């Protein structure tokens, strides 16, 4: 039983990481209608920035905050100077652009910091706490909490502030938003920046576990995409819940289903997707989209 609870909590923690990246992908998708395959790559670059700062003696918390600020700017710059040109064109082309960006960022990290694994200091101590006789790692609890707080803050921003209202307006209908005097371009930059910032938080939290490499988030990106499909592109809450389900399920499957084991657990979400796609194509929480011709 103790092991089970531990696995579930660990699963929630990795699920939170997937959820943060998935939420970033949904944010970008709602604003610009494309899937940013470089979301993980941008987070890795931010994590490298944090790592570089820590090697120069900057305290870890400050380094992570600086990397999040860097990510905000990176997201805005990428939107303005790279994606803007392909918005409104074929979505396929824009997706290939993000794939190109992923290649570019991976190559940049590899060139600047080599492809060797870097030890990233952990924000939380490695120990465990005992809750009702079950020992749970502090890192898992901490990771989950930080991500949840980040998500709540984003939610507050979107629901409770004028900027959030403007961002939502742009996401729903850019033309109308522009007619009512909103500066769509600038808001899109903000949206991309926020998504990249959230990704940077996830990157800094997962880096100690995965050790920092240019391809560190390729795996989590795949999980995040699985969560996006399962949760439905139109449902931020659904995406996060799906990410948690995936995190927990894959952890349990890895331990309790001997055929799967730790090497094949990446297949779990996709088996899940297969089932969901055949039964409920719009995702667990998504709405059926009706296309107007």
């Amino acid at each position, binding site marked *: 039983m103790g092991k089970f609870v531990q696995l579930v909590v660990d699963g929630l923690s990795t699920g939170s990481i997937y959820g943060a990246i998935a939420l970033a992908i949904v944010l970008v998708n709602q604003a610009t209608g*494309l*899937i940013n*395959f470089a979301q993980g790559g941008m987070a890795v670059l931010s994590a490298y920035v944090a790592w570089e700062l820590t090697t120069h003696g900057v305290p870890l918390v400050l380094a992570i905050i600086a990397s999040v600020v860097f990510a905000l700017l990176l997201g805005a710059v990428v939107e303005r100077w*790279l994606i803007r*040109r*392909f918005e409104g064109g*074929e*979505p*396929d*082309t824009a*997706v*290939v*652009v993000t*794939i*190109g*960006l*992923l*290649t*570019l*960022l*991976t*190559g*940049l990290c*590899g*060139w600047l910091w*080599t492809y060797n694994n870097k030890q990233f200091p952990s924000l939380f101590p490695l120990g465990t706490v005992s809750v009702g006789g079950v020992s749970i790692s502090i890192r898992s609890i901490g990771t989950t909490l930080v991500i949840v707080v980040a998500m709540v803050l984003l939610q507050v921003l979107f629901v409770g502030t004028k900027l959030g209202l403007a961002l939502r307006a742009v996401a729903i209908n850019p033309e109308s938003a522009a007619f009512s005097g909103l500066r769509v371009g600038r808001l899109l930059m903000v949206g991309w920046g926020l998504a990249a910032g959230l990704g940077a938080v996830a990157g800094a939290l997962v880096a100690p576990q995965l050790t920092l490499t*240019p*391809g560190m988030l*390729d*795996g989590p*990106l*795949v999980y995040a*995409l*699985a969560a*996006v*499909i399962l949760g439905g592109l139109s449902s931020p809450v659904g995406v996060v819940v799906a990410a948690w389900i995936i995190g927990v399920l894959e952890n349990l499957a890895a331990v309790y289903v001997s055929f799967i*084991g730790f*090497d*094949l657990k*990446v*297949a779990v*979400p*996709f088996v899940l*997707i*297969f089932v969901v*796609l*055949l039964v409920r*194509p719009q995702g667990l929480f998504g709405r059926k*989209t009706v*296309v107007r*011709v």
Partner: protein
Amino acid sequence: MARPTTPPTNLATPVWRRPWVGWATALVVVVVFVVAPLYLSVLTNQTIARVGVFAVAVLGLNVVMGYTGQVSLGQIFFVGLGAYVTAYGVTQGWNVVLVFVLACLVPALVGLVVALAAARLGGLAIAMVTIALPIVGVPLAKRLSDVTGGSEGLSTSFAGAPAWSGLADDQWQVYLVLVVGGAAFLLTRSLVRGKYGRAFAIVKGNEAVASSMGISPYRYKVLAFTVASLIGGVSGFLYMVVVQYTSPETLAFNHSIDLVVAMVIGGSASIVGSLLGGAVYILLPQLTSNIDSSLTVLLQGVVLLAVLFVLPGGLVSLPRALTRGRRRSGADRGPVAPPTSPSSTTAAEEPLTERQGHA
């Protein structure tokens, strides 16, 4: 400036677009390809063979991505699957023709199953699902070590030159790649130029229009993906002919990205572009590693983005882009090609009136 001997209808077609030029070019290319391997060095022949292998892989990707507009990030998985089926069959001592058929059918079948589920979601879901194929495929290949040889992989050599041919192994392999790959290219060319190709194009252009015309986007997406997987299998078979070794590394995720990069740089929705894509896949890393091997990935990304910005049609559209530029800069240089796309109507007005003046 005008050529009075040519009938007016032919004036509309530039020299390089007339049918006989196309056939003559094809003939020359075929002759060159038949003769050249006999005189080239072993290394060059091997490079040509590898380009051929990945040109076929890019061709498959083009069917689903270029022609049908469904981004697939899993093409390398089917190449790897084809390679594994080939390696397994050959080590079991099966007939090579049977092995080839299986190397096509098994990936096609897997592709069909994947597409049946993935194509249900519209838009970019295929991209998001297919990204999982290489990511799941690598640990799966390691796990099924009884069949795949685990991390060590499988190596077989079954495509040595037979004694009667009097050829060296590398020459024989180039010919095999040319024949099998050439057949794949010709068949795909007929596919995308015929009824199915038009259906693919409509699905790519506008799914709602497609359904209103009785073309089921779902069915054609599944079909395109299955064909792409099958061609991927062919490429995997050729991969074993040329490389003679496969391991989980063959179907790694970054290679799948490389294939997409190569396809876009070569030219999306183009047969010649696929060929160029194969060359890009093999030669671009060689070129960049000559500059600085740690820069390879970075330069690949830069080249891809640069192509998307400057030459969205890929390398294959370079001649067209150049002639368009020349036409714009010097409209008074005589009869020129009519617009190939409706977007350049303004550029066409002047030459048209000028031609009428001469007639």
